[in-house]
């Protein structure tokens, strides 16, 4: 096999890891609360700016900046639910989607206001590792590894803990969860917190590899939605797998032609698949 193709495939897998993390967050929130945070990628963008500002601007050690970013975004997730979602929980689902769309506008413009439209980079130079004849960026490897650990941690949280079980349960029957002694509102807030935290983690991992600018969310946002819908909105495992499928399409497509065309391919694949399996490949 052509060495560059192998590299492309491997990079595809590595990219898939972080996308999968984001898909998990989005699916978690949708599965539990039944809302799509259209602004999810832009929340990640804010996280990228945050770690940039803490590390580059304030000179904090990288790990500390990362930890603070993750916690801050977790809190931000709670705020999003309290201020934007909760007031309109009862209204038409499309309203909730649109309200987070307003948040998208706000975050993108606010970031422009504060940071301007320049591309910023966190400036952490990590080595490129050689595996035989294949060159892999350590940053990508690290990101993939951390994302995988995060996903596994989430899995065990959901499977083994009481709160995790409650989160899984509430997605299946919202009305009687109270009978189990679980406060619905509290579960929503905790879910939003986890969603925000995952976004924060993804932000740190992406910041290691890519520049940040106010509209970076537009590059991977629609991709994440597509991944989630493909895997079945709300289906965590489906989204996880779909992330790798899509990232492979992009990686291999990018190898054979240019990047944008590979995205076009991915989106077209998505649209076609929607018509083959309207509820997603692994729909509930």
């Amino acid at each position, binding site marked *: 096999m052509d060495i560059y193709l192998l590299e492309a495939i491997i990079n595809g897998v590595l990219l898939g890891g972080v996308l999968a993390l984001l898909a998990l967050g989005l699916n978690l929130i949708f599965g539990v609360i039944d809302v799509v945070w259209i602004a999810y990628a832009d929340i990640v963008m804010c996280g990228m700016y945050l770690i940039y500002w803490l590390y580059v601007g304030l000179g904090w050690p990288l790990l500390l900046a990362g930890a603070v970013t993750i916690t801050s975004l977790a809190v931000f997730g709670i705020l999003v639910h309290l201020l934007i979602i909760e007031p309109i929980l009862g209204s038409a689902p499309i309203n909730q989607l649109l309200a987070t769309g307003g948040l998208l506008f706000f975050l993108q413009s606010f970031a422009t206001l504060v940071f301007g439209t320049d591309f910023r980079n966190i400036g952490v130079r990590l080595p490129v590792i050689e595996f035989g004849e294949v060159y892999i960026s350590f940053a990508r490897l690290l990101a993939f590894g951390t994302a995988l650990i995060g996903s596994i941690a989430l899995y065990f949280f959901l499977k083994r803990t009481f709160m995790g079980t*409650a989160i*899984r*349960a509430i997605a*299946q*029957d919202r009305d009687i969860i*109270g009978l*189990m*002694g*679980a406060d619905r509102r509290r579960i929503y807030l905790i879910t939003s917190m986890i969603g925000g935290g995952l976004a924060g983690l993804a932000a740190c991992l992406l910041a290691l590899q890519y520049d940040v600018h106010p509209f970076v969310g537009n590059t991977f946002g629609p991709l994440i939605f597509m991944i989630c819908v493909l895997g079945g909105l709300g289906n965590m495992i489906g989204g996880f797998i779909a992330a790798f499928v899509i990232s492979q399409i992009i990686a291999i497509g990018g190898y054979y032609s240019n990047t944008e065309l590979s995205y076009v391919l991915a989106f077209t694949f998505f649209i076609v698949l929607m018509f083959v399996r309207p509820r997603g490949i692994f729909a509930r």
Partner: protein
Amino acid sequence: MLSLAGVSAGYGSLRALFDISLEVLQGEAVGVIGPNGAGKTTLMRVISGLIPPRGGSMTFEGRSVGGLPAHRIIEQGIAHVPENRRLFPRLTVEDNLRIGAFIPQARRHFAVQVDRVYTLFPRLKERRHQLAGTLSGGEQQMCAIGRALMSGPKLLMMDEPSAGLAPLVVQQVFEFVRRIRANGLTVLIVEQNVQQVLDVVDRAYLLEVGCIKLAGTSRELKGNDFIRKCYMGL
């Protein structure tokens, strides 16, 4: 133990319960019978906190519980097995039981409680890793009851436990109810199957169109002409 006085309730502008007063003493088994649409399920939901009561008072063990949300009521010791079981279909049997023990005081005793439930319902232990949605009707009912027991309740409420089950299975379910009762649990059962429930409970109330029409011991009600004609087909 549980006492309702003049409680009303409804859905929006629709009133379903009018001025309900009833009592359940500790150690008793009490039934609520009546036709479809009488408000029996509404009654359960008011007691367990899914619906807010309007007017009147509700006390449990001397403490006022009217108006508390559902997740607080279960902490008081009232567990509700909902109509149609309402298990979490894509969770395993064990996960369903686990969620039953969500309240802090139950979490600590999870291992002990789950053993007790498995002893009571050995079939559940066999199927502990099976998805609850794939269980048979009778098994689902056992799982639902087990789930409610996980919280270590003082009062167990069951909404139409016989619904949708084959007669033989219904017998089994009421056998379990007797056993649970024998262990000292107080029970409140809402049922359409009058014959079966009157054989299990000490006392019962007849609920029709949102009002209590009759009350008495199960012997009295079994001998009552109106009940015999309308609800037992005799």
